[in-house]
């Protein structure tokens, strides 16, 4: 069953077409890899899906609803959660409170936001449960700004999970992590999928990412150039060219 359907997604910045009529679909409980060389439009695509950029054309349909151009907080409330490539914790809040912010997502639109409290036992219990899933329960009462990068990456995931999402958008979750941290996080992502969560993964570290994904979509210069299972895409001539081409340019510098 299709959970997310992207049709003809287009985004221009000051004359530059960052995304050019990109279409793909994500089925329920699959991990889709969104790959491509630097500047291919992955980040723009990611922004359009998470509401941080408004597309100039095309449609995004999530769970049967047209969510094109919705603002981030509405998408978050509707069940699309994202993480940030460069971690963005609420530094002066505790790890637990970071998760609580996202746990409150259903309340912020109602008057009940003024009546209930986030300092009760019940919200704390639920937030601790989420921290346990990502292995951060022991850090619950530390200030988020004091955590090392590996933990902050997991905090990003914890905050996303607190939205009880149906679709999880991961923006380079493995960047800057040590090997064992990467393995642990990859295992967590695989585990989440096994529990029925759908994931879109943007990642540069191909070895980890290719092992994790069920299907791959490759962008280059804002256009979709290949889609399919990892093995098929790996051998695709246009994909090889896109990657090798940029590599050659990079080496030329």
């Amino acid at each position, binding site marked *: 069953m299709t959970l997310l359907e992207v049709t003809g997604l287009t985004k221009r910045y000051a004359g530059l077409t960052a995304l050019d009529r990109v279409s793909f679909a994500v089925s329920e409980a699959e991990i889709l890899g969104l790959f491509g060389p630097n500047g291919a439009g992955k980040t723009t695509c990611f922004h359009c899906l*998470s*509401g*941080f950029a408004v597309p100039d054309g095309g449609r995004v349909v999530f769970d049967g609803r047209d969510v094109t151009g919705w*603002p*981030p*907080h509405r998408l*978050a*409330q509707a069940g699309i*959660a*994202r993480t*940030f490539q460069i971690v*963005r*914790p*609420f*530094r*002066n*809040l505790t790890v637990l*409170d970071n998760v*609580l*912010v*996202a746990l*409150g*997502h*259903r*309340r*912020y*639109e109602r008057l*009940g*936001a*003024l*009546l*209930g*409290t*986030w*300092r009760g036992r019940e919200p704390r219990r639920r937030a601790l449960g989420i921290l346990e899933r990502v292995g951060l329960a022991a850090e619950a009462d530390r200030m988020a700004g004091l955590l090392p990068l590996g933990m902050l990456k997991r905090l990003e995931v914890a*905050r*996303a999970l*607190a*939205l009880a999402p149906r679709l999880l958008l991961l923006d380079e979750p493995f960047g800057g992590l040590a090997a064992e941290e990467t393995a642990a996080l990859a295992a967590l992502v695989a585990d989440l999928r096994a529990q029925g969560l759908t994931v879109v993964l943007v990642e540069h570290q191909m070895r980890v990412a290719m092992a994790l994904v069920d299907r791959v979509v490759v962008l280059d210069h804002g256009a979709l150039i290949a889609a399919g299972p990892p093995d098929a895409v790996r051998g695709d001539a246009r994909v090889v060219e896109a990657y090798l081409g940029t590599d050659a340019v990079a080496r030329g510098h």
Partner: protein
Amino acid sequence: MYVYTVATLLGIYCILTLGLNTITGIAGQISLGHAAFLGIGAYTAAILTVRHAWDFWPALLAAVAVTAAAGALVGAAAIRVREDFLAITTMGVNFVVVAVFLYFPFFGGAFGIGGIPAPSWPGGSLGKPGLFLLVLAGVLLALGVNLWLLRSWVGLALLATREDEDAARAAGVNVRRFKIVAFTVGTALAGLAGSFYAHFLTFISPEDFGFAFSITILCMLVFGGIGTNRGAILGAGVLGVLPELFRPLADYRMLTYGAILLLMMRWAPHGLLGDESALWRALARRRGAP
């Protein structure tokens, strides 16, 4: 009687710093125009009671409502301009509001509005001690509002907005709405203070509400510890009473405030009693030890 005068003034300062703390300390939206909202509240109360013979209490409510509406407008502006540009926008708002008071005859021009009646109780007029008690109740109300906010999910959303707007949006927080909420609540408190101020002085004029006073309020908040209600109250108390104790300080008030702002930012950005200040941490350790 002098004691009541000073105490009442300190109470008004407290309401102002608590209101600014809602906007700048809790929600992280810097405002350099808080005195303008004090002025809007004061002028509303003064015009209604002097010219339209309103009773003190309905005029108080009107002052709060009008000021909160003006604050909501500025909060809407905070959606488009961020951080330092919000700071200079609010600074501009302060200048414009004072100019309007000064140049529109409706507001009494440079002479302002005089003959503002003392607040009345059903039993008769409130004396100075009565007014002080009223202001004290106002301080408790402002403190209660902030404590309530911080306890509620709204408060958590405001804290998240302060820490990182984009991350807050990704976590389901409607940042725009909560900025307006913060400005509305904070300026409503300034409106409350404005009504008290007008009836306390019985005479108000435009220069009472200038940029310098906005800086004074900010300075009190920074000095006590921005982001905390105890800091807001301590700052208002200490910096409010100092010029009364040391007259020379009153003459060099702005120089002192300027120095405090610079030195606090340089060496003690969390103020005297902020959560991360040396003093507060030492106190927390002592409480935790036994």
